[in-house]
């Protein structure tokens, strides 16, 4: 059967807690930083910095990506490709 992604709403409080637990810091500029090295977190999908507002968490060790529609669409393409290979 075809497996698709299902997105759940996440409140600001839950997102803040989840990102913190995953090792990210949200600085005053609104962007995510890696707590270990202090460097800005770069979305593996779009190669861009990720703001707290746009941060979207997807399966794959709770990977954080930029959540604008085009980035999510790109993630879905990769997700579908992996599903086909399985």
């Amino acid at each position, binding site marked *: 059967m075809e497996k698709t992604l299902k997105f759940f709403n996440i409140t600001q409080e839950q997102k803040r807690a989840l990102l913190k637990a995953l090792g990210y810091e949200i600085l005053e500029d609104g962007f995510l930083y890696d707590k270990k090295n202090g460097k800005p977190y770069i979305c593996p999908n779009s190669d861009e910095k990720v703001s707290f507002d746009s941060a979207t968490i997807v*399966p794959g060790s*709770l990977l954080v990506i930029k959540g604008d529609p085009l980035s999510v669409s790109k993630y879905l393409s990769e997700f579908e490709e992996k599903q086909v290979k399985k």
Partner: protein
Amino acid sequence: MSGDESPQKILKELVYSMSKGATAAVIDKILGKLSKLANRKKYGFSASHKMGNALAEISKRDAFKRLKECVGADHWAIDFCRVGLVVAESNRLGEKIDISSIKTEALSREGPKGVTVINMGSTGAIHSVIAYLSKLKLENLLTEDIAKKFDKMIENWDRITIFVKGDDSISSTKSKILKLIKNENEVFWIFGYGSARMIACKAIAELNNERKILENDYIWDPDHIKDGSGKDVVSFAFKLCY
């Protein structure tokens, strides 16, 4: 059937545990539970969950699947078309969508051609384009050849489309169509929105009666779609057939 906790319950547990200063081991255990559930059930978490679900849903639709078969799943515009199809669907349902931020993002990623694909969605034209590409596939064209034609179509979009306006005359519309016919464009589209539908239809009917379409080796396919504001739109795909 499963005894899984809901993701919302796990998230609440996480928020509570962190607010109480739980140990790293406790937090890791909760994260592990959430990660396992998300991986197994393919769950994602987003403040824009509606858009995420709309994108996932559109991926299951025939139109998107056909497009992937036609131009290949690795075509650069696939991700843009998925978004374009969501925009078209939202328009059809009369749902508001922040199209300007999508266009800004599209522009920064792929330049004007990215915006063109999103515009195909917002005008509803994307369905007509996919229908045309599907016909090419039925004619046994190779994926790479269809992909090249699609690229050319995107690049020339402004030159191969006529958006008839409500105050256009039938004769000026006919002239515009004839110009595209004389240019021997492989394919071009005419769109008529709202009150312009009748003007587009009459112009094409007259050209048809005057045999200006067939004698120039064109055939045309009509379609009915909805535009960005939910207005009825007629579209005509003209195809050179020699």
